[in-house]
């Protein structure tokens, strides 16, 4: 059928190396999500604080994160920061770029989730003697995270997909980077990248199914 001979064996022989790379990919995605959620909560707090400077910082962060390509943000985290004399490793640059992106998108999701929580709840918490921080932390935040659970899952999948961009700043031990290096050695482009695609697909499916199971367990009414 094809004049091309598929060499799947060669690709499968490299599977352990690629799975090691997949671990790095998952690690970066998890780290960037953890940091991204913390930053997004902080940004949401900034927005609520009413302080002009903090509100401006939040607006700038969110709009830049949402209106420029993720690849641009990773370039900025690598080459942009490097022009100030700070040379970051590809791993750190990639992590900063994805975290920046995650925080921007998640903050916007949190803002939407906040609208669904009645103001009266925070006021009730305050009138029970909670401080503003306590009211946010104990009353608003848990509900906000619950409403934003699905967007958080989606962002996690995005984070996994975005790790593939690390290769542009010289990252060579995540799943995409490993695959590209192997490709340079063996020239089995189609087989290797098809295998990488399957691994990416499985990872995203695990996240989506896992998130559904967690949601079923946590959010039973």
């Amino acid at each position, binding site marked *: 059928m094809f004049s*091309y001979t598929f060499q799947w064996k060669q690709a499968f022989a490299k599977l352990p190396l690629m799975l090691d790379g997949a671990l790095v990919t998952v690690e970066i995605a998890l780290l960037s999500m953890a940091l991204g959620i913390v930053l997004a909560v902080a940004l949401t707090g900034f927005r609520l604080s009413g302080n002009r400077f903090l509100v401006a910082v939040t607006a700038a962060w969110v709009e830049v994160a949402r209106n420029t390509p993720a690849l641009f943000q990773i370039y900025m985290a690598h080459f942009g920061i490097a022009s*100030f004399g700070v040379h970051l490793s590809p791993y750190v640059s990639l992590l900063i770029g994805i975290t920046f992106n995650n925080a921007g998108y998640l903050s916007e999701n949190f803002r939407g989730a906040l609208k669904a929580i009645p103001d009266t709840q925070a006021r009730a918490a305050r009138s029970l003697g909670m401080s503003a921080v306590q009211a946010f932390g104990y009353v608003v935040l848990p509900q906000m995270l619950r409403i934003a659970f699905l967007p958080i899952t989606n962002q996690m999948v995005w984070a996994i997909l975005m790790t593939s*961009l690390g290769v542009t700043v010289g990252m060579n031990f995540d799943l995409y980077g490993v695959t590209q290096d192997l490709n340079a050695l063996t020239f089995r482009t189609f087989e290797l990248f098809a295998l990488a*695609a399957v691994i990416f697909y499985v990872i995203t499916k695990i996240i989506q199914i896992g998130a559904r199971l967690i949601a079923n367990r946590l959010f039973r009414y």
Partner: protein
Amino acid sequence: MFETALTFQDMMFLAQGAVQTLLVTAIAVVLGTALGIIFGVFRFQVGPWWAAPLTFVLDVFRSIPLLIQLVLANAFLGMVLKLKLSGFTVACGVLTLYTAAYCAEIVRGAIGAVPSTTRRAARSLGMSWRQDMAYIVLPLATRVALPSWIGLALGVMKDSALVYIVQVTELLKSTQILITRLQEPLLLLIICGAFYFVISFPIARFGGYLEKRWSND
């Protein structure tokens, strides 16, 4: 105080990259939306079981990094099928399917958001399926779909930054070429980012405005 080696010619080079970005985006969004509407209507019409194969294929496009999709398509067409296609064609093809995968989801959701009672009322007034789709579903579903569709179109423009992998010199790639030559990463990156921002921000705002204005409450 502020000196740069950036010349007019370099700016024209960047502009060419920007044109490539917009061209790839426009082609992918137009063709992808058309395909996405067909897929979305099909999925809604035949139900989840019969649409399962299509759903699976479209889901694959949303679960694999675009970079890998491009490399795979390029390798498959070039090495396996031995076709001589330009990188531009491959980029447009992959981005079109990528757009269609997301668009199908939006269309399906929007059709589902039209109350079935409204549609039954239309049918019981003697409208055919075609008339029901054209006069009842289309106007109502468009209101639901348009804000998300604007988001999708902007997303495709941003994701088109990845087509450099199939040798298309779009905006970000031309920026990178200039960075290598001029060694002024910050200035060049800011110019490049500003271009994306200036296009994306107002349209995104407009989408948000439509969403607010057209929401039911």
